[in-house]
């Protein structure tokens, strides 16, 4: 994979710090190359097929779309969300509707934010997602051309969700497009917001989204961060989410994946102050030859942190999934309470799952646990439903939905929970 040289630094020329950062990113990526299965963190996910495609960096898009046709978790007719729309990674103000925002809140495309909020961005961009040692972050940084900035002053509460709609619209199967957006969230002390990401494809052409998010949660800030990725089965989707929670901050994340040929969500959260809480749940439903990787690192660096993770996976046909869940409790992070659960349903003999939970504990007064199960549907439950007149396929779909909905039910925003449940149901009853 050789990114095009002419596409460098479309973000904003003339900012020396940014140009230096991007140059460093490109240099690092040139050194590192794409990760390979020889690296422990990538043992079960082979990016070989991605590296063999002749990617080119997506030009600014002009795809014609109507905003009404764009996905949203908010029911039509109700109060709208604050929505930013991206096509092939480029922010499209003409399709976006950020709406009225409380005093001091910034929600805009990263490129335009650099004009008015360069100081804020300089203070945060690349601080959590460091280019050294992480090829995908280096690649994203080097070719960073767009993204979103959400900044919340201390004490601000956003009642309605912020939605980032990121759409792939490839034009050519022979020369697929790649984009490297950055999501930057700077949540001031005690602020609260809900951020929803939609990743979809507008056609059948392959795309490569290499997303990096940096989430800064000041003391007491509460961020709900929900993501659904349902790109077409030719696409590659790699996301690296980095976050830092100061004391008493709270993060609630949910990752719903039904799309992509090869996808990976790598979430790295540091509980960098006492009493921070992380809830990170997710569900993936994959079939065909899809490959879905979920890799999490919850880094308990201070006392009294809480982390809860529940992931549910459903695999059919020849699909493969990877779950790597690492919980790190550093010395001094006493009274940490960490739980992790990963459960997968294999609906076919050819489906495959590699699960690797990893607890690394360097403090003595902690409560940590993990659990992992892989199985088939419960025969007793299946017979019970069929004995009541529910046909076999319908009974299976009910049980699979119930399995997945146990995770989705953990989403505290009821509108998002309803929308995600419907998306999971849509996977179960295609067409």
């Amino acid at each position, binding site marked *: 994979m050789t990114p095009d040289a002419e596409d460098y630094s479309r973000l904003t020329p003339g900012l020396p710090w940014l140009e230096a950062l991007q140059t460093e990113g490109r240099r690092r990526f040139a050194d590192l190359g794409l990760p390979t299965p020889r690296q422990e963190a990538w043992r079960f996910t082979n990016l070989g097929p991605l590296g063999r495609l002749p990617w080119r960096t997506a030009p600014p898009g002009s795809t014609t779309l109507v905003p009404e046709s764009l996905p949203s978790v908010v029911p039509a007719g109700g109060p709208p969300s604050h929505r930013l729309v991206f096509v092939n990674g480029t922010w499209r103000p003409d399709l976006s509707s950020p709406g009225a925002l409380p005093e001091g809140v910034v929600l805009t495309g990263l490129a335009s934010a650099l004009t008015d909020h360069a100081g804020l961005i300089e203070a945060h961009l690349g601080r959590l997602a460091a280019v050294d040692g992480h090829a995908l972050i280096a690649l994203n940084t080097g070719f960073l051309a767009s993204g979103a900035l959400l900044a919340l002053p201390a004490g601000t509460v956003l009642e309605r969700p912020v939605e980032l709609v990121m759409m792939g619209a490839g034009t050519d199967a022979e020369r697929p497009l790649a984009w490297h957006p950055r999501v930057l969230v700077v949540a001031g002390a005690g602020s609260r917001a809900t951020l929803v990401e939609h990743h979809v494809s507008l056609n059948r052409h392959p795309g490569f989204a290499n997303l990096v998010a940096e989430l800064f949660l000041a003391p007491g800030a509460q961020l709900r961060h929900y993501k659904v990725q349902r790109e077409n089965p030719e696409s590659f989707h790699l996301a690296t989410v980095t976050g830092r929670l100061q004391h008493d901050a709270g993060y609630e994340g949910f990752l719903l994946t039904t799309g992509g040929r090869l996808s990976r969500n790598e979430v790295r959260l540091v509980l960098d102050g006492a009493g921070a809480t992380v809830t990170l749940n997710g569900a993936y439903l994959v079939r065909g030859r899809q490959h879905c990787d979920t890799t999490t690192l919850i880094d308990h660096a201070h006392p009294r942190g809480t982390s809860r993770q529940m992931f549910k996976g459903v695999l059919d046909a020849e699909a493969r999934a990877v779950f790597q869940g690492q919980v790190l409790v550093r010395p001094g992070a006493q009274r940490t309470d960490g739980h992790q659960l990963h459960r997968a349903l294999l609906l076919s003999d050819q489906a495959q799952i590699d699960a690797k939970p990893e607890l690394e504990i360097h403090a003595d007064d902690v409560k940590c646990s993990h659990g992992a199960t892989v199985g088939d549907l419960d025969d007793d439950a299946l*017979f019970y439903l069929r*004995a*009541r007149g529910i046909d076999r396929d*319908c009974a299976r779909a009910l049980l699979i*939905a*119930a*399995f997945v909905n146990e995770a989705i039910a953990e989403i505290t925003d009821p509108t998002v929970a309803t929308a995600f449940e419907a998306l999971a149901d849509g996977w179960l009853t295609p067409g």
Partner: protein
Amino acid sequence: MLEITNLHASVGDRPILKGIDLSVQAGQVHAIMGPNGSGKSTLSYILAGREGYTITEGAVTLDGRDLLAQAPEERAASGVFLAFQYPVEIPGVSNATFLKAALNGVRRRRGEKELDAMEFLKLTRVKCRQLGMTDEMLKRAVNVGFSGGEKKRNEVLQMALLDPRLAVLDETDSGLDIDALRIVADGVNALRGPDRAMLVITHYQRLLSYIVPDRVHVLAHGRIQRSGGKELALELEARGYAEFGVDEAA
């Protein structure tokens, strides 16, 4: 209505049923009593179509149609209803979703119009009221966190909604205290009717004081050893199953 003829069945290589003959007419309630391991539950599962049993000989028909060739969901539509000894808990599926899927599954196969959400709710409320139940348990996940009595009442509610020709009650009294037993039995009795047959499977006579059968059969060693009127149940209660070569104290 239900005709069981020379039914032999095994699990793996082990024969469990060794030639059952039984005929139940519409409107009748028959009890099948027997010690543990006699094949009572096997018989009920075979009628409902559970996998894992091999029928080596014999036939079962309901209203003249071969039952053994039908999938479990087809039998439900044909009118077979098994009230489970241990109703299965299904986390994540609400009782309302379950009941509606079941009712509409059966109605579709019977060539009847499916009910929409409003019609379903109305019908279910009527049935709940007839059975002296609240509709609060509709919102909960199927049998999850239900007491023993609630689970059995939920079975009776399902029976009322699905309106079966043949109801098979497998050890319905197990796990119930006397008050719960009375409530469940009242529900079952309310569903007795001239078009419906019932097969009440039980170890103990106790249940038969509340659901009074027309006929009682003793099942032991995979065969019906003796048949009689309701007084046979009292006789068994007094004398146990010893005369059928079963020593339950052992």
